């Protein structure tokens, strides 16, 4: 994910890139052990990098929340407005370790995080770990469905607008730019106005059944499809003019085969490498969407915790999101290698 999209968007077949011949040579390479020896150091480095990033995320959040003015024991006992006695404050300080030196607290926190203990919520009187885990499923479902729908929409738009001449290309790209600019909160409100209040076909509140998922997923998917579609269309155009498409055509492959097998595989690469970013933006969108559709999930939990200054819950959600985001980045990296054999040569 390090390279900018411009570079990822145009792995345009220059003269120095390996052609089909090298790729099939790669496929013929026999030794499974060789592949392991090649993959393992890379995987180890990646995992070490991921652990480092997580450690830093934990460190930054730990020291950042120490900037919050006021006694944290006061926050545990109901915020600045509460009339907590000095004895109660002292008891809470001792219980949470607020009276320890910062560095001791820091390592205690790291130790707890390493064992998966995310501490206890100030406001909800329950452990953060189970709370966050119970909310994770709903948000992941939302994000995965939205990502899948966004891919479908983007693919459909990209293939349609590259086939239909200039007008289709114009319409396609305008639609994508507008879709990409739609803020989640406005799109959600508009969808509710049209489909729940106007037509009365879909519930405005996402209670857990399938019908309730439609509007939240649409809200998250449409703007994302705008971004993915622009990227896919452009790289599809580049791919369709590439030598490998020409040679596929020369071998007598049907137009459909050329488009769907060769060109799309090429065109999906930049969109795959964007999926890590997409996932992050979906999580951030989930804060809005879950709030509007009153859907339980990580985003809504986070917003509530931010409003109540429930620090352990905020840290818990941030850590979970960071883990999910980093895993997603690793996954997209692996997926790119799977789809693009050229990357495996490096």
């Amino acid at each position, binding site marked *: 994910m390090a390279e*900018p*999209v*411009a570079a990822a968007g145009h792995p345009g077949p220059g003269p120095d890139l390996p052609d089909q011949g090298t790729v099939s040579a790669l496929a013929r390479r026999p030794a499974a052990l060789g592949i392991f020896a090649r993959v393992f150091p890379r995987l180890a480095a990646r995992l070490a990098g991921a652990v480092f990033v997580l450690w830093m995320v934990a460190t930054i959040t730990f020291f950042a929340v120490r*900037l919050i003015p006021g006694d944290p024991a006061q926050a545990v006992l109901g915020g600045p407005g509460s009339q907590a006695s000095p004895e109660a404050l002292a008891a809470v300080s001792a219980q949470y370790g607020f009276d320890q030196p910062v560095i001791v607290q820091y390592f205690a926190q790291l130790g707890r995080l390493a064992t998966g203990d995310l501490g206890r919520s100030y406001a909800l009187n329950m452990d953060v770990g189970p709370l966050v885990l119970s909310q994770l499923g709903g948000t992941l479902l939302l994000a995965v469905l939205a990502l899948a729908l966004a891919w479908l929409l983007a693919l459909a738009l990209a293939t349609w607008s590259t086939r239909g001449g200039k007008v289709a290309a114009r319409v396609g790209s305008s639609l994508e730019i507008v879709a990409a600019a739609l*803020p989640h909160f406005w799109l959600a409100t*508009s969808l509710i106005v049209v489909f729940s209040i106007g037509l009365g076909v879909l519930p405005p509140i996402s209670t857990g059944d399938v019908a309730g998922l439609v509007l939240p997923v649409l809200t998250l998917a449409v703007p994302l499809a705008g971004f993915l579609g622009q990227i896919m269309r452009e790289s599809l155009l580049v791919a369709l003019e590439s030598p490998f498409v020409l040679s596929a055509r020369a071998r007598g492959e049907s137009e459909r085969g050329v488009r769907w097998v060769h060109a799309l595989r090429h065109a999906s690469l930049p969109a795959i490498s964007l999926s890590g970013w997409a996932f992050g933006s979906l999580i951030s969108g989930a804060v809005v969407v879950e709030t509007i559709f009153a859907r339980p999930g990580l985003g809504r939990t986070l917003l509530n915790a931010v409003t109540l200054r429930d620090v352990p819950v905020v840290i818990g959600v941030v850590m979970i999101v960071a883990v999910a985001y980093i895993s997603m980045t690793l996954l997209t990296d692996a997926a790119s290698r799977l789809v693009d054999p050229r990357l495996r040569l490096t």
Partner: protein
Amino acid sequence: MSDLEVQAGLAAQSRQSGPSRRLGVAETAAGVLALFLLVSAVVPQLLAPGDPLAIDPLSAFQPPNLAHGFGTDESGRDIYSRVVHGTQYSLVIGAVATAIGLGLGILLGTLAGMLGRVVDFTVNRFLEVLFAFPGLLLALLFIVIFGPGVVTATIAVGLSTAPGYARIIRAQLITVRSQAFVEAATVLGRTRWQILLRHILPNTLAPLFVLATLGVGQAIVWAATLSYLGLGAEPPTSEWGAMLSAGRTYITSAWWMSFFPGLFIVLTAVTATVLGRSIDRRMRHA
């Protein structure tokens, strides 16, 4: 990867496909809209002579009609006046947030791009860590610490866009640094500072203009999102996100209270995108 990098990448790719120098329909429309938004921000009275805060309970909840083009809200305030007068909030918040993000981005990016490998490596790892707070997460963390409000929300948006700017600027600097004219200046014995100020920075500034245009649109959307969530500007301020937030209560009966402020956010964001790409294309082909 940040939203901004995606935006910038898209601008770069549209640059390659569009060689035309003529002003297209989209660019003209975006230009007109930008002018409209600027006038609304600077002299809102010119476009909406009414008072955006004037209460008129007798004409509350009017749907769009001849007297009130965008309808009225729960206190009978004219939505059109409020939207036009709200432009200045959104544009100023967007501009300040972009300035903060860009400023920090320039600082970090220049450090990474100019001060050698160790600094570059450190800054890059730092940015990688910040990217693990995707989207609005960094902004939300900032708001937990410093409390909600317009000022913190603006700074929060600025901070959360900074890593994106930093990485693009670093890449830009490294590209420029390896060009022949920089090498020539080095051979001529210029100091590092002279080279940075005289040769490298001027050549990275033009792309920054594009970035800032694209970034303002995004910053406005994010700031409006925070206001909508009740963490930024508060009603009855006519900031667009806050207006949407107020309209949420009456969504079943008064759709226009939410629709029009949101429409302006979308128009502003689209305008920023189209203008940013257009400027980018023109600069490359100039």
